[in-house]
């Protein structure tokens, strides 16, 4: 049922979806098998007792060159995929778990609770997202210590309002539908109506937002890292932090320390966006363009026409 529109999609949307999935899968593979793929650890600056050269251009030993700290850029890019994926999965999962139920409850019950929640989430939504993430991760890192959790939770807060909005609005309109009314008429309680009748109607819009948010979350994480509020550089490799270090290199014409982490971000975000766009165009009937089936017109049979 869910796959039908995807299977029946044609042309550009299908191509977008395919390209996006391929890129995303590539990064998932990088993230999962990072220790096997990367030649060195993300914080290794020597091998066989010999220190790597500092800021060495790409070569056979160091495909993407080395940084000013003599770290292997290729290994850092690979391990960066792991960090990015951890944060994104965690933040998208948590914001789904918070946003979707809140939206369902708010849309179903309405009244003052709904108004209050809408006002609050609208306010949070109007807040510049990066600013919110900066302040939150700064505060949370004081409370939770290091690791990926502060950054992921800070990003979570940024995206909850989006799920809330979409789920709340669809719930609000779906609860008036006659099948919901019928369910209520035979005595179904709010919990049953929400979980059995509304949920499956409402979640259809979620995959699109979730993928687009995942793309956005990677940018936010990198922005945090760039400003120095993300993950501590001793704990994991993070692309945004690497680019921040690379800004100083750029003046000397050293391009490899910034280019590769940056390309990784661009590629992964593009991949996720393509998945989101592709899903949107295949799942959203107002955007979907069905291919017209070729029509074979009956040939006019002039001989048989004589009987008329």
């Amino acid at each position, binding site marked *: 049922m869910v796959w039908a529109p995807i299977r029946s999609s044609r042309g550009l949307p299908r191509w977008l979806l395919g390209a996006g999935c391929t890129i995303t899968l590539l990064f998932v593979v990088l993230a999962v098998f990072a220790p096997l793929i990367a030649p060195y650890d993300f914080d290794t600056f020597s091998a066989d007792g010999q220190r790597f050269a500092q800021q060495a251009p790409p070569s056979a030993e160091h495909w993407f060159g080395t940084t000013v700290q003599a770290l292997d850029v290729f290994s850092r890019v690979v391990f960066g995929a792991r960090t990015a994926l951890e944060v994104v999965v965690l933040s998208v999962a948590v914001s789904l778990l918070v946003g979707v139920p809140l939206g369902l409850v708010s849309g179903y019950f309405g009244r003052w609770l709904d108004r209050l929640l809408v006002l609050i989430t609208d306010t949070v939504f109007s807040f510049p997202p990066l600013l919110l993430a900066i302040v939150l991760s700064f505060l949370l890192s004081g409370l939770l210590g290091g690791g990926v959790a502060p950054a992921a939770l800070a990003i979570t807060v940024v995206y909850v309002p989006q799920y809330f909005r979409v789920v709340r609005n669809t719930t609000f309109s779906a609860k008036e539908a006659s099948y919901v009314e019928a369910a209520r008429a035979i005595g179904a309680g709010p919990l049953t109506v929400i979980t059995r009748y509304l949920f499956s109607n409402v979640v259809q819009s979620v995959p699109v937002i979730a993928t687009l948010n995942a793309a956005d979350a990677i940018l936010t994480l990198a922005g945090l890292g760039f400003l120095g509020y993300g993950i501590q550089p001793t704990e994991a490799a993070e692309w945004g932090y690497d680019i921040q270090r690379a800004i100083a290199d750029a003046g000397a014409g050293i391009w490899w320390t910034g280019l590769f982490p940056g390309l990784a971000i*661009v590629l992964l975000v593009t991949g996720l966006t393509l998945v989101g766009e592709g899903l949107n165009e295949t799942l959203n009937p107002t955007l979907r363009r069905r291919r017209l089936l070729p029509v074979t017109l009956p040939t006019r049979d002039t001989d048989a026409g004589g009987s008329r």
Partner: protein
Amino acid sequence: MSRTAGTLRRYVLQRLALVVPMVFILLTFVFLLVRVAPGDPVSAALGGRLPPEALAQRRAAAGYDRPLIVQYLEYLGNVLRGDLGRTISDNRAVSDVLVENGGATLTLAGAALVVALLAGIPLGLYSGRHRDSFGDVGVRLFGIVSYAAPVFFTGLILQLVFAVWLDLFPTSGQASPITQVRVDEITHILLLDALLAGNVDAVLDVVHHLVLPAITLGLLCVGVFLRLVRVNLIQSLQGDYVEAARARGIPERYVVRRHAFRNALVPVVTVMGLQTALLLSGAILTEATFNWPGLGSELVDYLNNRDYVAVQGIITVFAVVVVVVSLLIDIVNALIDPRVRY
């Protein structure tokens, strides 16, 4: 005519009434964000640098030993009177920080918006006009990639290519030191001050410094306008009035130009307003990349110094700016498009 004025006034009043709770919630939100962390601003900023007695004295003088709810009410009152307090780390009035550094952020954001509109609208119109052609796919990919590239990465690449290799533009600052000395500060917006002084060299110098940061931040928003204009044009081209124009035998290029383009461009105003938050977020990163002396740079500095009063002041202003801009945009929209008012 009077009916129109009546509905417009009612709409504006309704919209204004909504701003009050929004600003209130935002202020509360900002206060909670900054103050929910354990400790008070004075100890956070100066802890370890002053002896405990001096610290306690400073804390009492600033009123941080009172209950949080009292401080909250005081903060609300002060903000309403336009008083954002004084920074702890360098004892500036927060309003001075806003005046002195706000101009740089405003210039950057304004120039970026111009870049985004100049690039986004024509590309979007082209893309929508030639839907599903190779050009359309190319433009859409450009839209996606330009959004997918973090601003600081775009900035880095632009710096590498245009500043380091081609040596065309400077990589940091708002103007060369000589310009900053020679131009009197009147409005604290360097570009405007240079124009007011009638100093052509200074104007050129400021613009020269502005090009790369503006393109960097502008590229972040290009995709949004491009996509919006494209989708709107596609929808307009399927509209009944366009069909009717075609049926009357009006040549296709007139139909597109006179009938479809105009309607496709109306929502651009709304979306411009919605970009404020994105633009401000991007400005923080752009400023950090190009050493741009704006509010974003100040915010990052103050955060690193754990100066919560300054942080609180700056994010209060950012938040209020977003709300006010969205209010203005809604009103402008109601003026342009009568359907909004009802």
